[in-house]
């Protein structure tokens, strides 16, 4: 754990979860692993904080949960994106990219 990792800015965890789930339904552990791999281990997602976020997203109706069987034949809770979640992901992703572009522009200022 010596390599340098980034902490997540406030609120971006939701966006990452929605993005991960837009590919396929997954359980919590898989989401955590996926984020870890895809960000090339750069992003530090505290595993504990993943679950409260999942529950909040479920409450807002952006994702829905279903119990299923995992690869190794264990009962696991799978999350899938709902139609509302898909819409939310689109608008959040758009907002994010506009924000980062804007921040990048400002930072390039001489």
């Amino acid at each position, binding site marked *: 754990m010596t390599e340098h990792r980034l902490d997540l800015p406030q609120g971006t965890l939701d966006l990452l979860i929605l993005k991960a789930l837009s590919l396929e339904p997954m359980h919590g*552990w898989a989401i955590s692993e996926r984020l870890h791999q895809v960000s090339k281990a750069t992003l530090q997602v505290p595993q504990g904080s993943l679950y409260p976020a999942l529950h909040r997203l479920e*409450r*807002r109706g952006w994702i829905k949960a279903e119990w299923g069987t995992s690869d190794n034949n264990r009962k696991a809770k799978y999350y899938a994106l709902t139609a509302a979640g898909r819409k939310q992901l689109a608008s959040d992703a758009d907002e994010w990219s506009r924000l980062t572009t804007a921040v990048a522009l400002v930072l390039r200022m001489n």
Partner: protein
Amino acid sequence: MIAELWADLRYRLRALFHRSDVERELDQELAFHITQATAKWVADGLSPDEAKRRARLEFGSVDNTKEESRERRGTALMEATLADLRYALRGLLTHPVFTAGVVLTLALGIGANTAAFSLIESVLLKPLPYPHPEQIVSLALIDPRGQVPGGGAQVSDREFAVWKRDSRSFAALAGLSGGSAVLTDGGDVEEINGAEVSGDFFPVFTVAPALGRTLTAADTRSGAPPVVVISQTLWKRRFGGDAAVVGRTATLDGVQREIVGIMPPGFRYPSEADYWIPRSFEPGNGTMSWFFSAVGRLAPGRTLAEARTELQAVQTRAELNRPPRARGGRVDMLTLHERLFGSARVPLLRLLGAVGFVLLIACTTTANLFIARAAARRREFAIRASLGAGRGRLIRQLLVESVLLAAIGGLLGLAFPVWGTRVLTAVIPSTVDHVPAATLDGWVLLFAAGVALCTGVVFGLTPVASLSWSNLSGVMKASAPGAGGNQSHARQGLVVVQLASAVVLLAGAGLLTRSLTAFVALDPGFNPHHVLAVQVDLPRSRYANEHARSTFYDQLLQQTRVLPGVVAAAEADAVPLFGFSMLSRLGTDGAAPSTESNEMTAVNRVTPGFLAAVGLTMKRGRWFTDADGPGAPRVAVINEAFAKSRFPGSDPIGHRLFFPLLPNAPPGAVPVQPLIVGVVSNVRQVGDLVEPMAEAFFVAAQDSSVPEALTLRTSGPPLELVAAVKHTIATIDPSVAISVSADLSAVYSSTYADRRVDAFLLSAFALVALILSASGLYAIMSYLVIQRNREIGMRMALGASSAQVLRLVLRQGMTSTLLGLGLGLAGAFLLTRELRALLFRVSATDPSVFALVAVILGVVALGACYLPARRATHVDPMTALRWD
């Protein structure tokens, strides 16, 4: 958006009510994560124990995650409230007496209000059951001299024809005349209510028939075949709901009519009509149609005000061709709803006001109990505060308790409307002819819930205001004797409000009771006890000519006069309390009446037995005898009102009356000028009309008229004779039915029934208010005495006498009393004005009533303070000083 909210709600509800399932799932989910992470580290070559340790380390605190997840479910507030509810319920159950007292008080307050509201809703707020009921209006013409007493809303055929011809404001304009008819089909002779209506009647209501057709203008033409439309109720009851009835005939008043239509359920206008028959209300078609009702439907887009203005202009224009004294008619146009129920508005709002006071008192009583309880619970609150409960949390706890109590009270109070409205319906004046049944619908439930919630919040917050939070910690250390000063101020304030409310209600009740006794004490001018009044309906077809009617009524009088139990019998045009049958202007001593100066006189043609049958008092001269027959000189008897206005200061006996000739009198006729032979007492002619009108009596036989109201003075209860009278009628003509049979004393007491109910209700409310405020005063005084125990003991140890202590305590109690009394009297002074319409021979600020109220309240309050004060004088100084 809605879908999201719904998903959110469903999620939260599941989290709330399936809490253990949700928790178990969370455990499983987290356990799965840890297992997977462990497996990964094992695969990376770590030992199982080390792998598990790494997995947990990476995950962080499981408990924190769980707690956070719970919060994210968004049920924290609800869960806390549920916990509060459980806690509150437990607390209330451990104090059953307190709880029962509060719940019952609130049930009374909320229930009374809900009952009043459900009545108001069904009478005032519910629209009439016709399409666009706001467009249906009721029309009448008020003549320049004002309306005939008891006349109601009417119009004459002349006016009606003009309106119909010239007005452009109506989509339909119809005349109707309510009445009754004898139905003689299928064995039973039965009298049913109904109306004669013009061809536009059904278009005004735009209600389609359930079967067949409604009436049209073609049905009203002379020579059209006789038809009838009947109500759903009559159809079900008399014709078994058989659809084949349409096209068959029914005999109404001896006329065979074809049943052409059946109305849907609920259509019963006017009042409880069961049949509608066609009639043309156009003038000059042979039948006289003087006074009848008119209803109309406004043309689309027309407002009531526009239509009223237009119709008034039509009326004024039509009057231009008439003599000046016949001008000045005022169009009286109201929505039909207003005409039917308008007179109930003020009494109902007054009722709402009275029950509002009851609720206020229930609220203050409960608040008082709550404050007392909050004081007892200071220690409990202090402990919770020191354990970290914030002020908001404690307030929420109190509110949850009070709202819970109010909700239970409200639920219990819902039982009231079920039977309460039946009692309260009595406040609706008898001018409202059909009171719709009050129902317990959504609006009433909403109202009850709203009242309960507001009540709960109001009395729940009062103790909050009285608790001083800053020294809650002090409470932990000792129950300081000085603590609670705030509360006693708050409680005293509440007692003052209660006393004031009680004063207002007492004053209102006092005024109404005085009015009632003044009204009952009035001499009706005759003896209503043991009098039976009977009216019959003669089938018009068989009794069209005067001779047949006269023969029938002669036989009726002769045969009923000799019935056992009949002391005296008479027939007359009009029976006291039932109104006039004829009004006329009479001249005196050879002079024709002048329209400007001579008042209208009630003309009553009677048989000689009338004096004894009704129980009139002879004031001067003599009454009629059998010798005053058709051949004898014409005689008359007048009442005192007539004598006073026409022969002031002189003896009317020996003067003559002067009957003007009718316009259609044959040429050469001479005016009739009967000799006045006697003066009788004034008789209350119309139910609640106190000032008697001038009245003149004539011998029916001398006028060759047929008086149709039978009056029997009986030796026993009058109604016991009805069966014998019915039997007598059947032996004369079996097709004749009794239309009215009334015990005059019952009619008499019904003339002040409205007053009695108003007085009774307000007195009952006032009594409740008095009891509650007295017990409130008693409770606060007892509390104060206990609080000041140490001080009182000290004073007595220093030599204060019992009398001084008594005075000390009483002074405190009487201060509240005087404040409440003053406030209440001021309020009553302002509010009793609203009762003015109900008052009779007593002013709205009658000093004797106000003084009596003050005395009653003073005595009751003194009693409530005296007992605790007495207790104070028994304080043993030593015990008091050792207190705490």
